[in-house]
C-alpha cells in the first residue's frame, strides 16, 4: 500500500523519541540543572535550600543555573598539552627525531657544568609546536625513558599561533595528567587522567627503580 513505508519511518522516529535508551544528547559544556538537583548537590532538601539561598533558588527555577559537563573520555585518549617529566628526560632528542613533522625543538647545554652529577645535559629549549602537531604519538612511542606522555585535554583555544608553542617552562608547570596511551605501566595503576594528577615522576616509568645495591653491582664492581 502506498504510504506504508512512511508510516514505518514515523514509527521509528516515535520509538527513538520515547525510548530512554535512545537518548544520547549531552549538553556540553554546561548543563542546566533544576532546583531539585541543585538542592541535592548542596546536600539539603528543596525547602531549606530555598529558604537559605532564595536568589539561587529563583535562578534555578528560571533555568539560569548551570553546571559544567565533561564528556566521558577513555584514559587512553591522546590529547593536547603533552605531559613531560624533567627529572626523567635526558635530552636524547629521540622524540624530535621520530616526529614525522619535525616540530619538537630541543637544545641541550653541553658545557659540562653538570658533569659532576653524572654527565646529565641541561635542557634549555624544549618547544613543541602543537599548532602543527597531529597527535600521532610517535614521539611518545620513541621516548626511551618515559619522560614524554600524551596529554589528556582537548580544549586548547588561543588567539595567536605563537601561543600554541609549548615551551619548557610551560611543560614544567603544566598539571601532570598523562594519557595512558602506550604506557601500560600507568594503565595498570588504574590512573584516570580526568580526575587524578600524576606528580611523582618515579611512578610513570616502565622500569622498576634500581636499588642502591643493584646500582653498585652494575656500575661499581667491574
Amino acid at each position, binding site marked *: 500500500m*502506498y*504510504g*506504508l*513505508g*512512511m508510516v*514505518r*519511518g514515523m*514509527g*521509528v*522516529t516515535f*520509538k*527513538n523519541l520515547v525510548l530512554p535508551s535512545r537518548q*544520547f544528547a549531552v549538553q556540553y559544556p554546561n548543563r542546566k540543572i533544576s532546583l531539585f538537583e541543585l538542592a541535592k548537590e548542596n546536600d539539603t532538601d528543596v525547602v531549606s535550600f530555598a529558604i537559605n539561598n532564595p536568589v539561587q533558588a529563583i535562578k534555578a527555577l528560571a533555568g539560569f543555573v548551570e553546571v559544567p559537563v565533561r564528556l566521558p*573520555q*577513555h584514559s*587512553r*585518549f*591522546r590529547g593536547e598539552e603533552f605531559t613531560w617529566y624533567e627529572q626523567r628526560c635526558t635530552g636524547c632528542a629521540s622524540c624530535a627525531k*621520530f616526529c*614525522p613533522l619535525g616540530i619538537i625543538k630541543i637544545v641541550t647545554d653541553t658545557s659540562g657544568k653538570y658533569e659532576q652529577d653524572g654527565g646529565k645535559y641541561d635542557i634549555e629549549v624544549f618547544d613543541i609546536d602543537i599548532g602543527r602537531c*597531529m*597527535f*600521532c*604519538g*610517535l614521539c611518545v*612511542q*620513541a621516548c626511551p625513558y618515559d619522560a614524554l606522555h*600524551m596529554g589528556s585535554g582537548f580544549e586548547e583555544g588561543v588567539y595567536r599561533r605563537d601561543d600554541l608553542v609549548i615551551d619548557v617552562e610551560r611543560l614544567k608547570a603544566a598539571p601532570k595528567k598523562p*594519557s595512558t*596511551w*602506550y604506557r*601500560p605501566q600507568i*594503565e595498570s595503576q588504574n590512573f584516570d587522567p580526568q580526575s587524578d594528577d600524576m606528580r611523582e615522576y618515579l611512578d610513570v616509568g616502565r622500569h622498576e627503580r634500581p636499588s642502591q645495591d643493584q646500582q653498585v653491582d652494575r656500575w661499581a664492581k667491574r
Partner: protein
Amino acid sequence: MAIKTEPITINMGPQHPSTHGVFRLRVTFDGEVVVDVEPVFGYLHRGTEKLAEERTYVQIVTLTDRLDYTASMSNNLAYVRSVEKLGGIEVPERAQYLRVICAELQRIASHFVSIGFMLQELGAFGTPLMYCFRERERILDLFEMLCGARITLSYMRPGGLIQDAPEDFWPALGILMESMPEYIDDLEGLVTSNEIVLARTRDVGIISPELAVNGSVTGPMLRASGVQWDLRKANPYEVYDRLEFDVPIGYQGDTYDRYLVRVQEMRESVRIIEQCIKQIPGGAIQSEAPFFVRPPVGDVYDAIEAPKGELGFYLVSDGGISPYRCKIRAPSFINLTVLRDMLVGWKLADLVVIFGSTDVVLGEVDR
C-alpha cells in the same frame, strides 16, 4: 512545438554543499538533462605519495590515516600489510584477529557515513544522517579505547598493533554488537521502504556489470551491479578464511542497490566481529619488528577490501629506511572512472544523488 534549447555548462563545486569535499564537476546541461560531465580534481592534493618517500615506514602510517578519513583503520591495515609482505614480517594471531575486528568496525562506520550522506543529498536533510552518526559515534568510542584517537587512528604498526585492547574494550564491543542489528533495523525502517527514496533511487544511475568490470570499479559499487567479487573471499588475508560470511550482491546496479548492498554488508560485518570475539586467542600483539624497518630491495603490491573497494599499496624498497616509491591504488578515485557513464542522461537532481551513492571521499581521490 519544440523549443530550441542550447547546452549550458556550469561548474558544480569546488565549494558546493553536495560534493563531499572540494571536488568540481564541470557539467553540460541541455535543459535539465546532463549531456556531459567532466570531473576536475586535485583541490585536496597533499602529495601523500611523495611525502612517503622521505618518511620511515612507521611514520607513513600516520599519512595513511588521512587518505580516506572515514576509514582510517582500513588504510592502516592495507599499508602495514604491504610493509609486512615487503619485509617478510610475521604477525601474531591475536593481532590478526584484532585487525579484522578493527577493519570490520571501520567498515560499519564508513558505510554509515556513506548512507547518511547519500540520504542527505536526496533531500532527507539531517535526520537519517543523525541516526547514522549516532551509531558511528559508538564505534569511534571503541576506537578511542583502543588507540586514543577517533579519526586519525595510527593504530597499526608493521608487525602487529601498537597496543593491546584494554580490558573494558571487550564488554563494550559485546554490547555494541548486540545492539547493532537493532540500529541497522531502525535505519532500514526509516529508509528502505520509504516511497520517496524508492522513487528517487530505483533504476537511477545504473552501472551494468560489464561497464563496472571494464571500469575497474570495486567494492560495494561493483557488487551492487551483480558481480561477486570481494577480496576477503577471493584472496583471503589475515584470518578471513576462518570466518563465515556472505558477500551481498545487487541485481540492477542502481542507486538503490548500492544502498542495499551497504546495509547488508554492515550486517555481515557484525557477524564477522561476533565470530572474531569467540575465536580470538591470547598472546602477543606485536612481533619483534624494529622501529626502523629495513626491508630488502624489491617491490610489492598488496591490497585489501576497504569499505570503498580495493585499496592497495605498491611499495618499492631500495633497502633503506624509507620506501623508494609508494603508489596508492585508491578505490574512490578509480570508482570515478564510470562517473560519466552513470550521469549522462539523468536530470540535475539525480546527478547529486548518483554522485553521492558512489561514496567518494576526496581525501583518497586527491591523495
